[in-house]
Each structure stands twice: as C-alpha cells, then as structure tokens.
C-alpha cells in the first residue's frame, strides 16, 4: 500500500540506523509499521505496552505546542524518537544507536510533512484538530494546591 511505501522510504534512507517506524493512534494501537528487515502492513492490531503508552501520552500532553514536535527516549536499542501529533496519534522511529540521534532528527525533519499528511489521512482528522494548541492558564491557586498536595502526601 501507499502508506507502507512511504514508510519504507524512510527506513531505507538509513537502513543500518533506523530499525523501525511505527504509526500509532492516540491509544497506542499500531496502525502500521515497517522495520528494516521486513515490511508489514497491518490491519491487525498490535498493542504496545499500556504503561509505556500512558507515559508517552503524559509526555506528549505536557508539551506545550501543537503540531509536530520531537520527543526522545532511551530504549533497549538506543534512542526511541517519537514524533507526536497532539491528541491524534504518534509516529515512532526506532533507531539502533544513540550516535544516530542527529541523523534521525534530520530524516524526520525531511519527512515531517509526509508523515504528518499520512497520519492525518489515516485518522481522518482535520488540519485544525492536529495543530490545535490546548493551553490552559495556570493560576497561583493551582500552584498552592500542588504545594498543599505535596505537604499532605509527604507529611512535611
């Protein structure tokens, strides 16, 4: 399929460094992925570890910008670089050594538009939904609540 071809393009850009590219929806269900040893186009779902996904979600929701941004994480094989599209889904690129962070970044930058369009098509989300920035103002009272919460939990 079209999608897989585009993913394959990304992987073949740097076959020895990029292990895999996954596209997941917002619940962490992998919609399609490709690795450098095989090309799999799934309609069958593959569920990533829920805890891992929930922490990814936490991370993503804390990032203040909409649209596309980068999140980098340490993984078994080096760095997992995650590209998030707020509230819509994730694109995850797995690479095999930490030395290749810079390279992956360049590749992601190069393919950003393509991946972005891909995910939008997949999830039939509108442009507005994807770039929406949710920015709720924090008040002094909120911080006060956090301090009180800490005091109550830690008994200080």
């Amino acid at each position, binding site marked *: 399929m079209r999608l897989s071809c585009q993913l394959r393009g990304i992987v073949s850009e740097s076959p020895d460094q990029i292990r895999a590219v996954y596209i997941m929806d917002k619940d962490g269900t992998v919609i399609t992925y490709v690795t450098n040893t095989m090309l799999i186009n799934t309609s069958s779902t593959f569920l990533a570890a829920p805890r891992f996904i929930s922490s990814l979600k*936490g*991370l993503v929701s804390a990032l203040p*910008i909409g649209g596309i941004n980068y999140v*980098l994480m*340490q993984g078994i094989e080096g760095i997992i670089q995650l590209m998030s599209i707020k509230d819509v889904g994730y694109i995850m690129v797995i690479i095999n050594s930490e030395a290749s962070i810079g390279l992956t*970044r360049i590749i992601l930058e190069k393919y950003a538009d393509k991946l972005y369009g891909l995910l939008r098509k997949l999830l039939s989300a509108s442009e507005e939904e994807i770039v929406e920035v949710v920015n709720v*103002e924090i*008040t002094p009272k909120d911080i006060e609540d956090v*301090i009180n919460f*800490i005091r109550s939990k830690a008994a200080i």
Partner: protein
Amino acid sequence: MPVKTIKIVIAGPYGAGKTTFVKTLSEVLPIDTEAPITKGLMDNKKSTTVAFDYGRMKVREDLVVHLFGIPGQERFSFMWKIIARGMHGYLFIVDSSSEERVKEALGMYNFFRENFPSTPHIIAANKQDIPTAVDTFTIKNILKAPYEVKVMPLIATNRRSALFVLVTLLEEIKNYLVEMTKYSNEEIQQ
C-alpha cells in the same frame, strides 16, 4: 474539562544529580515515572540519562504536574530547548562537591538564562553531604546568578531535602504568577 499541566524542568550538567532527585521524590510522592525500557542495560548505576527522566503527578482530576529531567551532557544540548519549551519553572542542579564541578555548570546555566530569561527558577547545590562541598554563597558567585535567585543546599538522596527544594521552587513559581497577575490587572486598569 481541560486538564491543566504544570511543567517543571530539572536541569543541570552531567552527573549533578537530576535523576537521583526525581527518583527520591518518586519514593515519597505519587509520581508516575517512565517504565524503564532499558532492561538489562542499566544494572550498574553508572548510566547516564540519554534522553530524559520523566515523572507525572496527579494533583486533582484537572491538574497534573510534569517533571522533566534533561540530559546534562553537552552533546545533547540540542534537546535542551525542545524539552524546556513552555515550562513554568526550572530547578538548576549543580554538583557542589568541588569548585571545579560548579564551574562546569556555568555554560548550561547561561544557556538557560539566555533562552528563558524570565522563567522562575532556583539553583540547588547538590551533594552537600560531601565534606568538601562548596557553600551556596560561592556557588551564586561562580554562576553569577542574579540577586533574587535562591541557591538552596541539597542532598538529592535525602527525601526531606529533595521535597524542600521542590516546594521552594513551586513557591517561586507561585510568586511569579502572582506578580504577573498584578501586572496584567494594572494594565487593564490603565
């Protein structure tokens, strides 16, 4: 109901104690940290944070605090700005076991001051349990921190100490928000 997120960054150079700080806090507070996906590779603690430490604490249904520890090594400096963007405040941790170690922090501290000039922050002089530890006054001098920036002694392995530093940072953030509110109210009145 939109969820509010408070974003706090834990900065500081390589080996300052950022990971230790987040870990100690997570022992006393209900902080959800990343599931380690590095199984096997980290059996001795000489590991360095390649990406970043992360902790999430739910205060209310609609209020969550996120802690981000950033990688200290200079070669990861391209990530500093990405991770710090949109933060409400940061803790800058230095290894205060010797003046040399404190001096090593100057570059990163200046980076934060230049890129986030008005973001509330405090400095933590970590490893105060070490007999040769440099005092907070000297650290403030070396880092050329502005007069109003607090430098707190810290032992990141100690729960009370870590909590105290976190609460102090939150108070700074609160004061800053109070000032901001005052300022914008004055503007409206004029």
